[in-house]
């Protein structure tokens, strides 16, 4: 714009010089016109500025990774003057990241009409994507002046992480624990509750024969015991990873891991908890995942988490919040593992405890090669230590869980 102003001054100087050197009345008028023109342009700009409206809309609030999120900018110009130069300043970020990125969009709008600018955004990583329309700037026809208007229009869209069924997870290896909740779908071995009574089939055990009903009905009837379905498994997430690492990449991998395991459990009709440490509030939150709706609730909760780089308290806080509970599997998923976490994990009342560490291949190699490090400690504490390459979550999970 400064360049345009200098050009205009040069033009003014040339016309002024011509008006001086050549004695023509109209040349002076042209010179005076050129002097007055910028003021007129500014007045016109003010008029347009007072009438223009810019809005941001989006119809998509949830998308998967690499799926387009169409963002629409609607610019309304009710004036009779077209707007050839309009500069819109927007920012966008993934809430997991602290970096806010800026984007400038140039637009033009015809007089007395509206323009829609649709741009598609997509994210490589999971998270809440926030797009903020900061301001827009209108320029006059000669680009000598501009007026800026601040806006505060925010749009939020959730990008879900990728998750899949882990074939290797077998639901039948669970050990039954006492529970007051029973599965309505399948029978188990808990004699305290009868799941259903049915006719005898070959192979049924004689101890299961309901003698009273059999005499009454004059045919053999078998009682099926219930299967207690209290949450035997818990997936505890610690959004912790080393400082300097690619935040989004790590979180994305952690979420992929968590949700894949949870999804698999869901498919296996295995109710479980997903719990996480909310560093902002200093408490642990958990969601009981039994249906798909619960799963998405958990996803929503996870997407709103804030990551952190040192984790010493998360397990302690959880144990303090839920002290008496027992689990079949306590799966602790983290991006930055330390020995203290292993020790705390060992205190949990679970039959099996697993720590899944998602990290860079180099670090994993280092851990694997370090015989006196985490692996040894985990073994001594009775914790299954599973290092997972963040670039190959599925492969490593399937491998280790098989």
């Amino acid at each position, binding site marked *: 714009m400064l360049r345009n102003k200098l050009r205009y001054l040069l033009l003014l100087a040339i016309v002024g010089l011509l008006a001086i050197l050549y004695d023509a009345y109209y040349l002076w008028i042209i010179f005076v016109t050129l002097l007055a023109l910028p003021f007129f342009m500014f007045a016109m700009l003010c008029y347009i500025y007072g009438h223009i409206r810019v809005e941001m809309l989006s119809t998509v609030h949830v998308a998967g990774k690499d799926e387009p999120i169409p963002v629409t900018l609607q610019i309304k110009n009710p004036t009779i003057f077209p707007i050839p130069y309009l500069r819109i300043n927007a920012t966008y970020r993934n809430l997991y990241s602290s*970096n806010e990125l800026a984007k400038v969009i140039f637009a033009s709008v015809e007089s007395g009409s509206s323009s829609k600018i649709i741009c598609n955004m997509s*994210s490589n990583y999971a998270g809440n994507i926030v797009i903020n329309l900061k301001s827009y700037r209108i320029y006059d026809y000669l680009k000598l002046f501009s007026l800026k208007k601040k806006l505060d229009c925010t749009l939020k869209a959730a990008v879900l992480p990728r998750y899949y069924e882990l074939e290797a997870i077998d639901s039948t290896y669970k050990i039954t624990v006492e529970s007051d909740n029973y599965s309505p779908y399948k029978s188990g071995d808990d004699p305290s509750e009868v799941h259903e009574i049915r006719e005898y089939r070959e192979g049924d055990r004689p101890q299961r024969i309901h003698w009273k009903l059999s005499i009454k009905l004059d045919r053999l009837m078998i009682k099926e015991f219930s299967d207690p379905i209290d949450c035997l498994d818990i997936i505890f997430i610690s959004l912790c990873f080393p400082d300097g690492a690619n935040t989004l990449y790590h979180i994305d991998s952690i979420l992929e891991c968590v949700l894949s395991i949870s999804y698999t459990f869901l498919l296996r009709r295995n109710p479980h908890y997903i719990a996480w440490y909310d560093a902002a509030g200093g408490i642990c939150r958990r969601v009981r995942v039994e249906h798909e709706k619960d799963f998405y609730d958990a996803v929503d909760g996870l997407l709103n988490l804030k990551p952190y780089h040192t984790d010493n308290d998360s397990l302690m806080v959880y144990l303090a919040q839920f002290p008496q509970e027992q689990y079949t599997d306590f799966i602790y998923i983290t991006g930055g593992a330390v020995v203290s976490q292993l020790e705390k994990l060992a205190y949990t009342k679970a039959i099996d405890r697993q720590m899944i560490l998602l990290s860079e291949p180099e670090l994993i190699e280092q851990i694997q090669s370090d015989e006196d490090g985490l692996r040894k400690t985990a073994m001594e504490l009775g914790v299954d230590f599973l290092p997972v390459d963040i670039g190959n979550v599925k492969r490593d999970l399937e491998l280790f869980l098989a």
Partner: protein
Amino acid sequence: MVYMKKEYREGLLINNSLLVEDLGNTGLSLLARLFQLLAIMVGSWSCLSILLYSIPVPARVAAVHLTILLTFAVVCILCLIPSFTAVKLFFCILFYILFFISRFKAIENGFYIMENEVISSIEQYYDVNIGFYVADYRTEVADSTLLMVMISIPVVSMISIAAITGKLVKITSVIMLLPVAASFLLGLTPPEHYLLSCIASVLYMTRLGLNGSNVPDCEQRGKLHKIYSWTGAWLSLICLLLFFIMKLFISEESYNGFTSIHNMRTDIQTKLSGITLEDITDGIVNYRLPEFNSTKGGLDGGALGRTGKVEYDGSEQLRIVADIRSVWDGVYLKGFVGSNYTGDRWVGHTDDDTDDFRALMEELPEDYHPIHQMIELAYNGWGENLIRDLALRRMEVEYVGANKRFLYSPYITDFSEMDNINYKQDLYTTPGRRRSSYTYEYYDLIDMMRPEETVRLMTAVYYSTLDDEYFKYERLYRNFVEQAYTRLPEEGLEQLRSHCRRVMKEQQFVSTEEKIAYIRNYLRSNTSYSLTPGKVPPGKDYVEYFLFENKVGYCSHYASAAVLMLRLFGVPARYVEGYTVSPSDIAINSTGELSLLMNENNLNGEIVISIKDYNAHAWVEVYFDGIGWIPVDFTPSSGIGYNAYSRQTLNQPTVTTPPPKEATPTPVTEKTDEDKDDTENKDNEEKEITQKPEATKTPDGASKAAAGGSGPQSRQNDTVKRIAVILLVLSLILCLPVAYNIRRYILLRRASNNYKAIYLFAKLERVLNIMSGRSFKKRIELEDNENYLRQSFDFVDDLALEGFMNTVRKARYGRGRISGSELQQVKSFYNGFIKKICSDMPFSRKILIKLILLIN
């Protein structure tokens, strides 16, 4: 809406194109189309009309207009059919070229006719002699028309294409403004309606040129074109509207009434038109650091050089050809006249005085101007037989080195018959169009040796004249003179004022002549003439320092002091600058038959006199009631009244007292005719050499060899040397990168394939750093570059990239050498990438990238 580059930042990807859905009407509306057509027609018509106006070829205007219409129609039809653009263009150009070839002779003749018109205009305006082309004027109309038609076709085509498609806008705008520039350069102002139309069309075009040509989508480009079309239309309309509103507010009458604007314009015009290349080179050559306080001889339009010494180099300023009789007693050529003293210069009238003069001129008849006052009186005197000889003499003055801003003319020149003369009120005249020579007709009325005789004679004429109108007009003018030419600066000059008040009380002057005589005596007695008076200390007044402290000065000092003293005595007076030629100067500097000069009985014929810089002089004009302005020279040892002292004498080392007024001219040795032809020029040269000022002592005792190295030839040599040094330095600066690149090329040719591959990759990395904004210092891994290339550039083929990177890795880390085909693969990837990148970039960024690659 603009094309947006693909960006992948923090995992977020913004798609590389935007879709603009215009909720209004699509396509150019009827009104917009009409405006577009109007812009094309008006732009073409105005541009070609200005061309015809500037270069008045005898072409048929109707044919040109018809060509405009037809060309526009054809181009519109072709543009509306979107396909086969290359084919259409090819055939159009082919037909044009074929037609051009078939009528080449006629077009060539037309071209020469046009060239001759241009040359004629240039010669007339710039007063140069170029020479014409040979052309056949028997068919001038037909050939000129044909030429104009051939010019019109491409011009109209370009304007139409630019307006319809938005392409070639910049070049079209330049072409449309070329005739405007040409007309101004030839000293013509195009008619108002032509110029306005042209400007309006150009304004419309310039907005079209901002069409997003880098937008890949055709539909989007069309939408943008529509918006910019309307923008251009609005801008043109607003400008036109403002123009007419301004015209309403500032009418031509009120514009002409703004005296200050006219004065300022005239002053600036005069100053600007006086600047030549010589002035600029002289300015460079003569530039001195502040401690140098000398000026070269000559005149400076009233500026009182506050310097310590004046130098002469004998450079020729004017060359006059005049009747011997009129110049035998010497001649004064009047140039600049100043009426107001500012302390360090004499300037023209104040704004109030200018307004008063304008009012006075309205009262005076059209053919009466104060500058010709004495001619009027002389005719009255001649009619009364009081003046016997009122012959009109002729003098041709040729400018060699003198300032062309002023007309150096003898007393009393009749300017009324001269063309292109501007009157600077009643002060002096300037040329309307500067030339290298002027011919003046003048009345040799004033006896510069005895101005009092002239006063006496003209006073008698005045009182005898029966011209009542002369009395009336002279009285009106006299009132103005008494008001304007007795004014002194409001502040300062206290010492001079008190001195003059005292003198007035003591002397009890009766007449103007007494006052003049007193001032002359006072100056002669109390001051000395010197070309090296020393610098005026800061805070001191120029005249007061001369009169009361330093008491040493040259003609400007004397003239300025005399004017101020006269004004304090109540006598209207003004400061004059010009050139004077004394009889000894004529003898020394003239070319011609010297014997004619020396023989008073044979004062017939014309003589050519060379006027040098040391002939520059300042004197005073005093107004005598009823008569007008009479020149009076107050400088002792100067003027033609003091012929014993030539310029040579004035430049002697010692400061001498001026000779008495009655000194006779120094006799010059008479030469015979035999010697005359052989030795005339030689003598002139010798005497010119001796004329050069020798070392003079400045007040502080420092001496200066004025002659050595300060002649015109040496000054020219200095200029040439400086220019040569500047050119040499520039060449070195330009050659360095070229030499560097040559050296690098030679080294690269000898380098191994591995080195070449790594080198190419390094260049590519540099480009990637610029595009991504990464720091050059930060180490970036090969993988990072590869990822960046893969993610940020759609056009990069993965396979090619993989091959490229593998070869680079092999070149960098491998033990073996890469083969020629691998190097070729690297080269082709690199070249393809750079080419694609540069084609998508704005021009400035492209240049930057190329520069970086060149320097790297």
